[in-house]
């Protein structure tokens, strides 16, 4: 089957900056895929290249088998992009914007039932006739997502769709996107909320400084972190002997990485020797954030 997205040796230079350094990536149709990486890793550059907003310095990109440069019309038909910035056209209301957006893709009134469905599923029904300018930030975000879906593209790219969005919308949004994925749409997601990626995405690519440093199923990536995490709430001075095991710290809350479960005993004895009281303790599985921190700091 033709891959939904295929990148071969894609380089992108911005003057002296080498933003993407020969990225190879293939995303299959029907995947729910996460593109992760710290700020400035090249995620948005990659998305802008897929969308034709940028042109690659070298290498090739295709969407559903169509080259984004030489067959840009077919490639763009196949792609719906939710941009990261909260942009809107202040002259029109939500429904008008969606009709225009579908119209640019050659869709007319036969597409109206789909637009109604998108409006309904994203909770925009009572704002459909409201001018874009008058919408709250969260509603503008919904409208932006709706615009990317207006022409019902087989491949949907969501660039930080839940940035600054409340819990209710996140829930509504993910339910709808999960449904679209079940119906066969390929979903590509960038997010800073790693728990979202872990819950939703079957495969993850991790970008760092313009290179893919990890590309695997979420399951394999999670398995790559050995042991477990130990969350502790302590009172007293944390012993220096344990400092190498600390993965995160927030005031008196510590997250320690354990290579094996038997290390719990060692940790507790060190704490006891240091005269530190354990107020709360929890043993948890490593998550994507641990993988992320591990890979980004290691390489």
């Amino acid at each position, binding site marked *: 089957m033709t891959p939904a997205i295929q990148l071969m040796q894609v380089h992108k230079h*911005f003057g002296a900056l080498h933003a993407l350094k020969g990225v190879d990536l293939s995303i299959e149709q029907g995947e729910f895929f996460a593109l992760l990486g710290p700020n400035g890793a090249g995620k948005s550059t990659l998305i*802008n290249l897929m*969308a*034709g*907003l*940028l*042109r690659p310095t070298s290498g090739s990109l295709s969407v559903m088998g169509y080259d984004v440069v030489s067959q*840009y*019309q*077919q490639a*763009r*038909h196949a*792609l719906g*992009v939710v*941009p990261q*910035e909260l*942009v*809107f*056209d*202040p*002259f*029109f209301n939500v429904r008008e*914007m969606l009709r*225009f*957006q579908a*119209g*640019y*893709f*050659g*869709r*007319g*009134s036969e597409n109206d039932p789909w637009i109604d469905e998108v409006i309904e599923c994203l909770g925009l029904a009572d704002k459909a006739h409201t001018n874009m300018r008058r919408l709250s930030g969260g509603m503008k975000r919904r409208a932006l997502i709706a*615009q990317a879906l207006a022409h019902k593209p087989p491949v949907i790219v969501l660039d930080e769709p839940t940035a600054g969005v409340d819990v209710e919308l996140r829930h509504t949004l993910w339910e709808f996107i999960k449904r679209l994925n079940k119906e066969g749409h390929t979903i590509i997601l960038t997010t800073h909320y790693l728990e979202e990626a872990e819950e939703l995405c079957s495969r993850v690519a991790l970008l760092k400084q313009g290179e893919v440093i990890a590309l695997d199923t979420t399951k394999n990536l999670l398995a790559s972190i050995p042991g477990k995490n130990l969350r502790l709430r302590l009172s007293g001075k944390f012993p220096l002997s344990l400092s190498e095991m600390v993965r995160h710290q927030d005031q008196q809350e510590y997250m320690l990485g354990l290579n094996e479960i038997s290390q719990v005993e060692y940790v507790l004895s060190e704490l006891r020797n240091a005269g530190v009281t354990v107020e709360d303790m929890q043993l948890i599985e490593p998550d994507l954030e641990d993988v992320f921190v591990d890979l980004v700091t290691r390489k």
Partner: protein
Amino acid sequence: MNLINQRMRGPWTLFKKEILRFWRVSFQTVAAPVMTALLYLLIFSHVLGTKVEVYEGVPYTVFLIPGLIMMSVLQNAFANSSSSLIQSKVMGNIIFVLLTPLTYIEFFLAFLLASIVRGLVVGTVIYLTAICFIDLPIVHPMFIFAFAFFGSGMLGTFGIIAGLWAEKFDQMAAFQNFVIMPLSFLSGVFYSIHSLPPVWQKVSHFNPFFYMIDGFRYGFFGQGDISPWFSLSVVVGFFVALSILTIGMLKAGYKLRG
């Protein structure tokens, strides 16, 4: 809408959106320029109405109207494409068009035709208002239409170039105030260039706006400073040259795609 086939629907939608964009704020985009033109007419005709006669048998007030109409047509055609582009660029919503399969030619045609429509609407409203008060002859209606069409087309194209080039509103304002305004005011709207010293007459011949105004006026009175056919060739020539330049810029993605 059913008359538009699927292939044409994309550019048609962009054209329609551009038309609605100015129509939604027609108080600002149509009524305001009409008001400005009528104020010019009122003031200049009051001051000079009976004292100046540029063409024999044509009172100054009547002489003035075609020039004012054409100046408004040109300025509004320019304003339509340039302001739409700069606003979309600054607000970032240009991305909604850039993500679509619209070709650069379709993009160009939609913006161009919307500018022509705005120019013609403003011109028509000024004309209809003016003839309520003043008798205005029409000798060659085809010249009137041809100059209005190609003139607004040329300025609409010029507006696309300015809109692509400018990155901020003040750059656009500078373009409008230091290029468009001087060219339109020094084009013979308020006078015949025969009334100028010989040097300035020569300089005027390098101003494309002069040909648009003079040719347009010829359509009303059957007389002008130079041959209307020559003027029309100059205007069409400029229109074609600017269109080629604009299409080239759009094809290269100038300041739109990195």
